[in-house]
Each structure stands twice: as structure tokens, then as C-alpha cells.
């Protein structure tokens, strides 16, 4: 069954739509629901039903006059002028063209560096057997953390490595617990405690099996998967392993 097909029952549609409009879904689930809404006209209709009915609640909230600057900023954005009032840094930038020249120079230096072979290529993810793109519940679209799993080869043991997306803010995952959710049974296996600044985390055969059979990995603050889950992401096989 296609992934999105299992959502296409009246009960699930009603549940998803009502919770989407109510606002109790996490940002991650909300994004997922939005992609389903775009693909399913019946779910879309259900969402419109709820948002039209519940909007009455908002009419009972006392109106508040917004600051005049809001409209000015909107107009400036629509006219392609950015914000109506440039910030301090923007004003300084406009005042000192020498900064522009300095930045251009730095850009050239960076560009040159890009063409110079890197002595230590990024190892995480390269040659991995499984990866999970871990996403937190905030609203950013890009996954923040990559978990890569490598099967034992020769003298190298099976191991897990963690790498942050440089475009997302990092957070301390030291001491958090990694869990695997079985793709067939939904059973949860504790894969152990993460040490962010340590060498790759070594894995036993039992842990590897749990990871191999998992549909999703979860990093949580507590001892159970429901205890403050911080990151989660689908576990994908990217190499043929036994």
C-alpha cells in the first residue's frame, strides 16, 4: 500500500483534519498533513469544514489594533524593497562601501578554497549502509541531523555516526537516547545513549538488527521514546547489506 493511501479512510481524514485545524499537531506532523491535504481532495474538504466552523471562535476574540509599521513593512516587501526601515547593519553596509570590497575579497578566498582538494573529506554518510535524516518539531523544512549506520567490514565494527546540517542550528544531543521503531511490528528498541563528541558509536549485532529492520529512528531526552522526543526521521537503506 502506498504510504499516503493508508490515510485515505474517513476516520483518519477526520482525525487529521480536526487536529490540523485545532493546532495540536507538532510542526513536523503539520507539514506532513499539509502535503497530504494537497494530494487528497476529501481531506482538503474536511480541513475546510473545520476551519470554517471553528473560525467563529476567533470572531469572539477582542480585536487589537496592530502597529502601523506592520502595513508599511508589508508594502515595502511587496514592492521588493525589503523591510521599510533598514536595520542598523544594513545602514552601515550602505554607508561603508569598503566593507563590500572586503566581503568580495573574502568571497574570492572562499571560492579558491572550494577548488582546493580537502585533506579530510566529510566521512559521515559516505559508504553508509543506512541513513536517517532527523528532523525536530520546529518549523524548519530541512532535517537538522544525519544519522549514518555502517555495517561491520573487515576489522571495522558496525557503527553509527552523527553529522549536523550546517544550515540548521545545532543542539546538544550528548546523553540523549536513540530508539529504532520496527517497520513491521512498531516495536521500539533502545539503541543506547548518544555521545555527540565521541568517535562513532559502536553497535552490537542485536542493535544492528534493530536498526536494519527499523522504519524510523527517534532521539529522545528520556528513557522511553515518548519522553520528550527531540528528533525523528525515516531510516533509509542506501547500500545492499546482508
Amino acid at each position, binding site marked *: 500500500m502506498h504510504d499516503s493511501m493508508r490515510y485515505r479512510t474517513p476516520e483518519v481524514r477526520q482525525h487529521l483534519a480536526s487536529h490540523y485545524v485545532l*493546532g*495540536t499537531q507538532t510542526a513536523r506532523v503539520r507539514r506532513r498533513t499539509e502535503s497530504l491535504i494537497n494530494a487528497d481532495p476529501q481531506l482538503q474538504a474536511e480541513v475546510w469544514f473545520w*476551519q*470554517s466552523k*471553528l473560525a*467563529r471562535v476567533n470572531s469572539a476574540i*477582542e480585536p487589537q489594533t*496592530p*502597529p502601523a509599521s506592520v502595513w508599511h513593512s508589508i508594502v515595502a516587501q511587496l514592492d521588493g524593497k525589503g523591510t521599510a526601515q533598514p536595520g542598523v547593519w544594513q545602514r552601515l553596509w550602505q554607508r561603508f562601501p569598503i566593507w563590500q570590497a572586503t566581503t568580495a575579497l573574502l568571497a574570492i578566498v572562499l571560492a579558491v578554497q572550494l577548488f582546493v582538494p580537502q585533506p579530510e573529506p566529510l566521512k559521515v554518510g559516505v559508504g553508509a549502509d543506512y541513513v536517517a535524516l532527523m528532523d525536530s518539531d520546529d518549523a524548519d523544512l530541512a532535517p537538522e541531523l544525519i544519522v549514518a549506520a555502517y555495517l561491520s567490514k573487515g576489522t571495522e565494527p558496525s557503527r553509527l555516526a552523527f553529522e549536523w546540517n550546517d544550515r540548521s542550528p545545532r543542539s546538544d544531543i550528548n546523553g540523549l537516547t536513540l530508539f529504532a521503531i520496527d517497520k513491521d511490528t512498531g516495536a521500539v528498541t533502545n539503541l543506547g545513549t548518544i555521545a555527540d563528541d565521541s568517535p562513532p558509536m559502536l553497535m552490537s549485532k542485536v542493535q544492528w538488527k534493530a536498526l536494519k529492520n527499523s522504519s524510523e529512528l527517534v532521539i529522545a531526552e528520556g528513557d522511553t521514546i515518548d519522553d520528550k522526543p527531540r528528533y525523528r526521521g525515516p531510516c533509509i537503506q542506501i547500500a545492499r547489506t546482508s
Partner: protein
Amino acid sequence: MTLFTPEKERELERLLGQIQLRHKPAFEELYRLTSANLYGLILKIVSKPDEAADVLQETYLKVWRNSDQFRADLGSAWGWLCQVARNAALDRIRKNSRQRELDTSDFDDLLNALEAVQPDLVDEADLSRCLQQIRQEMKKPLLLSYVYGMSHAELVQHLNAPLGTLKAWIRRGLMELRACMTV
């Protein structure tokens, strides 16, 4: 509390139709008609006025850019505008991991206003009648979530109830509300 009259609703639909054709005066008129209501709504979720103003700005930019997503054949214009604003506000609070300071002191007044029947409002009778029919323990978490954007964790703290019980109340409350509103 005048936005929900059938006349206002038709006016919003007309303006959104013009905005879909990139008509800026219609957009300005929509802002004039709805910004105070949406700002009030956002302030319930994002309590800091400067952050709420940012969210309001973001909301209208989304309305301008995504006006083609408005479907007059599916539901109300006011409902769609509220959804855009609430989503932007929820994104903002979920991004901030720090604990929010929520002022829910006006909750009872809001509930009384909602349950009072005002026949000139579209669908109002539906919602008022149905809110009166569902039990208090179900009604409260539903409205706290909707009005203040409370997460399950915040509801647990605010209502001092176990998470499982709370989820069951919400699920049951939504089912009863839906059954009542689709009669």
C-alpha cells in the same frame, strides 16, 4: 465580532478573488478590514506584541503569495485567513523552545461569548449549540488548544490531567462536535 456576518464574508471572498488577480488596493482593503481581528487572534498565541506583529506581517505576505489556495467553493474566507494566521503563530511558538507565559484570564468570558446565540452570524448557531452540548472536560482542552495554541504538554500542565486522558477528551470532543455540526 462583526466579521462573521454573511455580508462581511461575501466581502472577504470578493477581496480575495481580486487579490488572486494581484489587485493591491483589494489587499489593502482586506488588511484594513481584518488586521485588528487577526492581530487579536495572534496575540492570544504569541503574547509578545513585537513577535505578534512579525507574525501578522508574515500572515499577510502569505495571504498575498498564496491567495490562489483560497477556495470559496470549499469554505469560508474568514476561516481560511484565520488558518493562515494561526499556522504562522503556531510555527513561531513551536520554534521557541522556551516556556511561554500564557494569559488565559479571559477564557471564561470568551466561552460565555461563544455560547451566546447571535443569529446574525454565519454558522454561529451551529457552533454555539454544539459547544453547549459537549461536556466541559472536553470543551476546555479543545478551546484552550484552539485559542491559545496550547500543545498537549501545555494542556497537561494547565489542566493537571494525564496525557492519555487529555488526548481522549480532545478526540472524543472533536468527534461529538463534528457529529453535532453535520446534523
